[in-house]
């Protein structure tokens, strides 16, 4: 079975500073990896995804993530955050065994401080 770990439940960061939100996964098979963002009172919106190919994935709103198979990680980064980036961020994994459900982490609350 898969599991996804987001070690940081809350990350405060000053505006225009860089940020990294950590995600680790465990899986015995090849995985698909996703980052979703949830703004207050809204649903989950896809930021970016890794299916195969280049390990550096670029997404919306200036975010990017790097798939590291040896460290089983898929950390999310942004070089300069904005107030509007304040939200909950979820890492999720799906596998290639035929199942089409996603396993989510517990989420990281990013708070951008003016």
């Amino acid at each position, binding site marked *: 079975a898969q599991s996804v770990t987001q070690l940081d439940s809350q990350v405060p960061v000053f505006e225009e500073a860089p940020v990294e939100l950590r995600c680790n996964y465990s899986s015995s098979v090849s995985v698909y990896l996703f980052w979703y963002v949830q703004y207050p009172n*809204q*649903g989950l*919106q896809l930021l970016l995804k890794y299916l195969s190919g280049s390990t550096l994935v670029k997404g919306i709103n200036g975010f990017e993530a790097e798939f590291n198979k040896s460290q089983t990680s898929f950390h999310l980064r942004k070089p300069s955050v904005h107030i509007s980036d304040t939200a909950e961020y*979820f890492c*999720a994994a799906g596998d290639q065994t035929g199942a089409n*459900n996603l396993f989510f982490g*517990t989420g990281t609350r990013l708070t951008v401080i003016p």
Partner: protein
Amino acid sequence: EPEVTQTPSHQVTQMGQEVILRCVPISNHLYFYWYRQILGQKVEFLVSFYNNEISEKSEIFDDQFSVERPDGSNFTLKIRSTKLEDSAMYFCASSVLGQGTEAFFGQGTRLTVV
């Protein structure tokens, strides 16, 4: 932009009552999902639905739960006899295909069982 819509946004029900949560997936999508998030916990997969039948379900999705696509546009989750521990945010999602494709999520229905 097409989106997944869920109604109601908030439902309060008494323990033991039946509830039906409604979702309208994106029209050309073939896979439909229900997830839930208990307050402070991770988003958990409940069930996926394809070609008018359940394709995957988790251990959470016991006999108290059922899903239906009654009219070709709506996708519903029924909880037959609600328990206090069913209180959670319930997310509906849909995707064009199954594994590896982006799932689009609705805004969620917050279910409170009293």
